[in-house]
Structures are given as C-alpha cells and as structure tokens.
C-alpha cells in the first residue's frame, strides 16, 4: 500500500504483536486503521464531555454565577448525565422528511470531524499517518462538511433548517478562502505540506514558531487563521447558522437524541481539530518553547497548546456578540482576505531574501 511508506504508529504497534503474525500486512493495516478510528472517536467523545463541562463552568464564572453544581463535585458529572439522557431519548423522525439523507447527514458531518485527526502530529513519533500532502488533506476533508450540512438542512423539509444550512454553507465556503491563504503562509514558511515537516521546521525555541519568527506576517497569518477558523466551525461570534433567536437552531432544528449528539460531537471535534491545526502550523506543534523545558514530552506540549486555544474559543463565546450576515461577509472579503494576501506577500519576500 502507499501508506506503507509513511510512518504509522498504529501499524508499528500491531507489527510488534506476535499474536497477530498470521494476518497478511494489508489486514494488519486495516486493523490498525480501525483501531486508530476508534481511539480518536473516544478522544473526541471524552474531550466533548470535559469541554462541555468546562464551557459551562467558564460561562458561569464569566457571567458571575457558578454554573452546574448539582451532579457530582462542582457538577463534573453533569455532562455525563446529559449524554446518557441523549442516548436513551426517543429517535424522532418527523413526517415529510427525506429519511435517507436525514440519517446520512450527521454521519457525514461527524466523519469529516473525525477524519482530519489522521494527520495530527501529536508527538515526535506519534502520528497516525504523516501524509506528504498533510495540510492539503485537512483542507480537502473539511470541505466535505458543506454537503453534509446542506444534506441535513434540505432533508429536514423545514425552512429554518434550509436557511440555516444555506447560511452555514455560504459562511464555510467564504471563510475557506482566508483559512486557505493563512495556511499557505505557514506552508510557504515551512516549504512543505507535510504536518510533521512543518512542526520540525519550527524547532529550537518559541522564537522559531511561525507566529513569532516571521514577524509580523506570521502573527497576521495566525490571527487570520484563528478568526476564520472560528467562522468555519460556526463558533461565536460567527454562529449565525444556528442563531437560536433568528432561525431556531439552523440545520439541527429537526434533529434530536443520538443524531443531534453527533452534530454536537462534531462541533467539539472541530474545535479540537482547529486548535490542533493552529498549534501545528503556527505554535510549533509538539516543540518545547525553550530548551530548558525539553524534559516535558512533546504530546504534553501539543495538548497544552491545543487546550489553550480551545479555552480561548470558549472565552470568546461568552465575550463577543454575534455578527450580522453583512458584517460577516465584510469581515471575510474585505478584512481577512486582503490581509492574508499581504502576509503571503510578506512571507514570500522574507523567504526570498
């Protein structure tokens, strides 16, 4: 297989298990892929459990109240209780709904959130598959979410859902432009599309991270990526597609129970993914900020940086008001995109001279 050339930590682990020697390599590969998928599914699920609790607590404290306090110590079990409630809820499919697409939509949306985890360089030797087109793969996979959302919105046979889906699709497609341009900045600076190479080219201290090393263009690119990625995953202040006060809950209106929780998981998976991408591209991935701290292993740094960015997401959600549609488009085309071009130009000059 093509992937055999690439370093794959799960394949390596399975190769070392003598019990499985009877399997031909391809089956080992498939087994490794299944295990990887399961692992990351659980990573997302557990992250969502924790992040929802954190989000509620942070929201509470920002608004000067306590947040969930009843279930468990300081409400730690609250999300778990909610999750169990969602799992055992009745699966409602309303009349007039296009059943096939309605069922398929959450699967596609969640799949895209899961599939990007394949190329995240968690640590120096910890990556499922270091594709040589890594970052392009992420961009490609994350575009698949748009048909999924349109599918959900259309199949619900509900005008609020359709509006939400159209808004969401327009927003994601528009903001792909600044996201792509900001990614190009990092790719130019690293000279490679591979995630692991991008991280390795930022080695040697925090001043080599692209956010600082190509000052100020790296910082502009990071800022553009961060803002635009917020819009791409429909987080506040860009959460127009699911603006409760305007169009109920957007494309998720008709969903409930398990299917709704898939959308929800996808949202938290995307938060994690976006934070991880920003960490990889601009914050040096698993690299230590100063060599003094190099005894701390790479995965810890990676997780810490990602979690910090996720915390900023949550922080912003409870700080900023929602934008109007025209402000959203103005932001994308007249602010972020021109500045992204400026920073591409600047980094190009930097790399040339």
């Amino acid at each position, binding site marked *: 297989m093509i992937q055999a050339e690439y370093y794959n930590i799960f394949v390596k682990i399975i190769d070392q298990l003598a019990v499985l020697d009877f399997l031909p390599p391809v089956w080992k590969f498939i087994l490794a892929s299944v295990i990887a998928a399961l692992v990351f599914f659980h990573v997302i699920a557990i992250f969502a459990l924790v992040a929802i609790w954190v989000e509620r607590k942070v929201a509470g404290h920002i608004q000067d109240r306590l947040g969930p306090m009843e279930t468990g110590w300081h409400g730690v079990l609250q999300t778990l209780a909610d999750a169990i409630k969602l799992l055992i809820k009745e699966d409602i499919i309303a009349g007039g709904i296009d059943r096939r697409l309605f069922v398929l939509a959450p699967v596609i949306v969640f799949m895209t959130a899961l599939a990007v985890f394949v190329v995240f360089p968690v640590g120096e030797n910890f990556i499922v598959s270091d594709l040589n087109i890594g970052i*392009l793969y992420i961009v490609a996979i994350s575009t698949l979410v748009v048909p999924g959302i349109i599918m959900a919105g259309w199949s619900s046979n509900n005008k609020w859902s*359709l509006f939400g889906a159209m808004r969401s699709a327009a927003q994601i497609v528009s903001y792909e432009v600044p996201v792509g341009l900001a990614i190009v900045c990092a790719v130019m600076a690293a000279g490679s599309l591979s995630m692991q190479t991008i991280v390795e080219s930022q080695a040697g201290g925090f001043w080599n991270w692209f956010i600082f090393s190509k000052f100020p263009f790296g910082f502009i690119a990071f800022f553009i990526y961060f803002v635009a990625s917020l819009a791409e995953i429909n987080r506040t202040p860009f959460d127009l597609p699911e603006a409760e006060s305007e169009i109920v809950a957007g494309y998720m209106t008709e969903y409930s129970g398990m299917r709704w929780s898939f959308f929800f998981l996808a949202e938290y998976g995307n938060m994690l993914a976006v934070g991880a991408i920003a960490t990889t591209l601009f914050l040096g991935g698993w690299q230590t900020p100063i060599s003094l701290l190099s005894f701390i292993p790479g995965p810890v740094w990676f997780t810490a940086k990602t979690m910090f960015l996720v915390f900023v997401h949550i922080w912003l959600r409870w700080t900023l008001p929602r934008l109007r549609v025209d402000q959203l488009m103005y932001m994308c085309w007249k602010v972020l995109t021109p500045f992204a071009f400026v920073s591409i130009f600047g980094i190009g000059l930097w790399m040339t001279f």
Partner: protein
Amino acid sequence: MIGKDIIFIIFAVITVGSAALVVFSKKIIYAAFSLMLSLFGVAALFVFLNADFLAAVQVIVYVGGILVLILFGVLLTVKISSDNVISHLSQRIWGSIAAVGMFVLIFIAITRTNWTILDKSEDVVYYPQSEAIGIQLLTNYILPFEVASILLLAALIGAMFLVRPENK
C-alpha cells in the same frame, strides 16, 4: 497483493455505481449527492495512481467548490418536492442507444490497442509530487497557468454579470 485489489475494486464500484445513480435517480438532489460520492471515488482512484496531491485538489475543487455550487443551484431553482427529472421515453431510448454504442466503441479501442506500459512492479518508489507540480507550473506551464488565471477571472466576472439583479 489481494488486499490492495479489494480496496481498489470497492472504490471503482463506488465511483461507477454512483455515476450510474447520477443518471438514474429520480430526484435531482439525490443525483447531486451521488455525484459527490462519484467525485470522491475518482479522488480515491487518483491515490492509486500516485497522484495524491491531485486527489486532495479533486476533493477541494469538486466537492468543496463545484458540488456546493450545484447544490446551491438546486436549492435556489427547485422546489423541495421536486418533480420527475427524467425526460421522455423516446429521448431515453435514443440516448441509451447512442451511449451504449459509444461505450462499445471505446471498449473495443481499449482492448485492441497495444499499450506501451512502463514496468510497474510491486515495489514502485512513490515520491511526493507537489514539488514537481509546482516547478512545472512556474516553468514549462507558466503560460497556460497565466491563461488559466485570466480564464478564472473572466468566468468570475461573467458569472457575476449574469446573475446581478436586473433593476439598477
């Protein structure tokens, strides 16, 4: 290597099967989503041909771009309970005759031609293509590259001109 063949056959069947669904589905929205699957399958086939960069671009451009455009077109022009999209019977019969005839001809051409094929033994060295593509784009293909960018600009302006509101 049988495993690789199995995966290949799965993707080939997905590609061709959903292309067939594009043609035969009654609802235009199903056709659109089948098209998505077919395009995705083509991208997977590109991976088998050592064109992984192109596979990613295929997904970005077709699924993220063209398909979304088509979906928007569908949503903007067709009512949700859309009517039958298949044309008259005679048109279908004559069309099928033409298409089958074309396929038979092409298939005969494929099997009869004596292709000169490079030696593709099992241990082909795969190398990243993105760099080679970039170099080609800025050297041998610089003129087509520029022309393509002008074409895109022209198409952009043309499309905007076509859909702008009539009343000033």
